[in-house]
């Protein structure tokens, strides 16, 4: 997997294209195109240098297409070699990564000194890139205390570092599990022997996972990566002894890809929807030609079992909150029949939020799927065994991720898994219910067609709304919404869990989390507001809403609530902001619709004011079950 086989290999003229970058008509697009290939460390370095040679204006154009993230790094090893690979992998995953590196081995100094480089520069997160060599696992066991095991000692050290970065710099940490090197002392018994590395590392990793669960920090599971590729391949002792490089260089691109996938997930950029072709992607053969009995799917046949494994993967993703869709060149009835009647089929037709089987071109069909589900094209992964279809989608819809697949279907699963499109940083109730919510949405749309007017329709939904300030129960979902919502998002400010916690505890902030229920089910938390308190006014720094509940006058109910709360606090004015992005045109006139007045406008920001006493209450057909005003 070191060569990232789900990505296309770089073309023969890669070096030439890097050299020509500064003369390119649209250099930002060209950088995106080049970064998408499976780059070696040399190729990453070449593109990295070429980008550095672009003028400041062009570089800021490029940055504008990406989400910024500032990452500090501490390590017991040399990380310098990896930097170009980190930055290129970040671009591939939609992130403009600014790195703050520290000198090799300066972990404790950086963490504990309040004036250290990292504590002063306050990046968005600190990568604590430590491997087993950073910890005292090889201490003299004869003098070791019986009270404290090596793994406890190591865990304490790491906890102090995490806590210190949190307290002195307000940063979250990206913390690594420890891969076990291929060292043995007593063979099978190592895992049972106190003080022996394998047992210590096993204990450490288990305890770390438990510890991380209750903290805002996130885990980079290096042990899992090494488990996938093999310790004899990952660890290269020559490189460690010669230059303190922590893993074989050939694995730097893989490590960089997984690190930046995690960072992208922290910024809500994980994929949301898996769009699948049918023939030779979900089963072997062509249903239209081979018929129901002719296709291969299910137990008892090597090809059928290969495709069954892919279906199992998709089904599990669905349970984790990924939306599934079909996009296939097929007769719709024949394709549907395969799901209904073939006994080997694990996926059922109602596992898919959208099912498109026709003879139109796939690019149009995928656009239709994105519109129906109200998600961006960049949230979609499209899996197709046919290289020509893959190429068309890559060209027509470059925002979409299209994994390369080999001819042999028995290899599909491991490549799709290794691509890690659906990186998660938490698992909320909303994830568990997402597919049900989307299929309820389809039913809601059906009612809408039959209802006489929009208001009749809204009344018939029997909506119930509840409001509360931020609290620990909602925190994870609040962070998720803040980092994922693109369309109904007035300012697109992203915050980490640590920052959200600060709003929760700060008297200078007024916060709202909004839940919505209707007769089709619980929509969960669908809107989040953060206001900054000034003497005479509240400034609405964040107002966002999930796209699922757009056009249901939920924002009217929210505004009524916010104004009521402002009145009660004796605040006379509300100020809102609209900061345009590529995706939030939907809410450009949001404040005007609510009765705010535009008091300032520039390319980057419109400012809107509302005199609370002049507000006309909206009273939409939504029943308030819990208000934050009376609380």
């Amino acid at each position: 997997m070191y060569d990232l086989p789900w990505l296309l290999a770089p073309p023969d003229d890669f070096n030439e294209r890097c050299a020509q970058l500064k003369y390119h008509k649209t250099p930002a697009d060209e950088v995106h195109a080049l970064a998408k290939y499976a780059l070696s460390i040399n190729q990453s370095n070449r593109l990295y240098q070429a980008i550095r040679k672009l003028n400041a204006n062009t570089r800021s154009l490029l940055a504008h297409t990406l989400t910024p993230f500032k990452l500090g790094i501490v390590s017991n090893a040399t990380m310098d070699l990896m930097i170009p690979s980190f930055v290129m992998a970040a671009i591939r995953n939609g992130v403009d990564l600014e790195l703050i590196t520290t000198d090799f081995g300066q972990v404790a100094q950086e963490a504990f000194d309040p004036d250290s480089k990292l504590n002063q520069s306050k990046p968005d997160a600190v990568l604590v890139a430590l491997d087993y060599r950073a910890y005292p696992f090889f201490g003299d066991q004869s003098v070791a205390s019986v009270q404290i095991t090596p793994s406890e000692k190591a865990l304490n050290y790491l906890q102090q570092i995490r806590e210190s970065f949190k307290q002195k710099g307000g940063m979250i940490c990206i913390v690594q599990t420890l891969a076990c090197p291929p060292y043995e002392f007593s063979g099978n018994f190592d895992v049972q022997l106190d003080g022996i590395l394998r047992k210590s590392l096993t204990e450490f990793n288990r305890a770390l996972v438990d510890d991380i669960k209750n903290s805002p920090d996130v885990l980079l599971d290096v042990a899992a990566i090494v488990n996938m590729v093999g310790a004899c391949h990952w660890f290269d002792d020559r490189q460690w002894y010669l230059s303190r490089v922590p893993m074989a260089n050939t694995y730097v691109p893989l490590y960089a890809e997984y690190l930046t996938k995690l960072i992208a997930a922290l910024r809500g950029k994980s994929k949301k929807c898996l769009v699948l072709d049918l023939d030779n992607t979900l089963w072997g053969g062509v249903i239209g030609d081979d018929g129901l009995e002719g296709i291969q799917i299910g137990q008892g046949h090597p090809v059928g079992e290969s495709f069954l494994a892919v279906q199992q993967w998709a089904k599990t993703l669905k349970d984790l909150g990924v939306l599934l869709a079909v996009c296939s060149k097929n007769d719709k009835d024949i394709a549907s029949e395969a799901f209904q009647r073939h006994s080997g089929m694990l996926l059922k037709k109602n596992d898919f939020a959208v099912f498109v089987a026709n003879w139109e071109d796939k690019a149009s069909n995928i656009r239709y799927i994105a519109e129906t589900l109200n998600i961006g094209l960049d949230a979609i992964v499209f899996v197709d065994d046919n290289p020509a279809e893959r190429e068309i989608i890559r060209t027509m819809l470059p925002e979409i991720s299209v994994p390369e697949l080999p001819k042999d279907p028995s290899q599909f699963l491991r490549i799709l898994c290794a691509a890690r499109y659906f990186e998660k940083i938490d698992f909320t109730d909303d994830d568990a219910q997402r597919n049900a919510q989307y299929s309820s949405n389809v039913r809601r749309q059906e009612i809408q067609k039959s209802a006489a007017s929009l208001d009749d329709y809204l009344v018939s939904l029997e909506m119930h709304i509840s409001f509360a300030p931020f609290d620990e129960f909602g925190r994870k979902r609040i962070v998720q919404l803040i980092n994922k919502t693109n369309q109904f998002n007035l300012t697109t400010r992203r915050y980490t869990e640590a920052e959200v916690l600060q709003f929760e505890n700060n008297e200078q902030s007024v916060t709202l989390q909004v839940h919505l229920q209707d007769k089709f089910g619980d929509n969960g938390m669908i809107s989040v507001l953060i206001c900054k308190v000034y003497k005479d006014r509240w400034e609405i720094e964040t107002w966002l809403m999930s796209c699922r509940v757009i056009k249901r006058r939920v924002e009217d109910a929210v505004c009524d609530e916010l104004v009521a709360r402002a009145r009660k606090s004796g605040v006379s004015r509300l100020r809102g902001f609209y900061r345009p992005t590529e995706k939030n045109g939907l809410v450009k006139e949001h404040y005007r619709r609510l009765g705010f007045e535009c008091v300032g406008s520039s390319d980057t920001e419109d400012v809107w004011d509302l005199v609370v006493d002049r507000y006309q209450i909206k009273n939409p057909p939504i029943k308030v079950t819990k208000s934050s005003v009376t609380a």
Partner: protein
Amino acid sequence: MSQDKAVTLDQLELIFQDTFTENTYAFSVNTTRDDIEEWDSLSHIRLLTAIEANFGVQFDLDEIGNMTDVATIVNLLHEKLV
């Protein structure tokens, strides 16, 4: 120079072009670390990785320390590849 070494030298030139982004030196069997400004300890690791991957060989610690000019690299590769 034998036929084999010439082939190795051609392949090596491509690897050097891949590893070093600046084209400010003339590649030949006589090229040394002093001729290439970019050839520092970090790019040395990238060079090493690229050569090992290209030829499917592995150098030992002593060899890595001695690989400071093209002639030595060609000789080492020749030893390993016959």
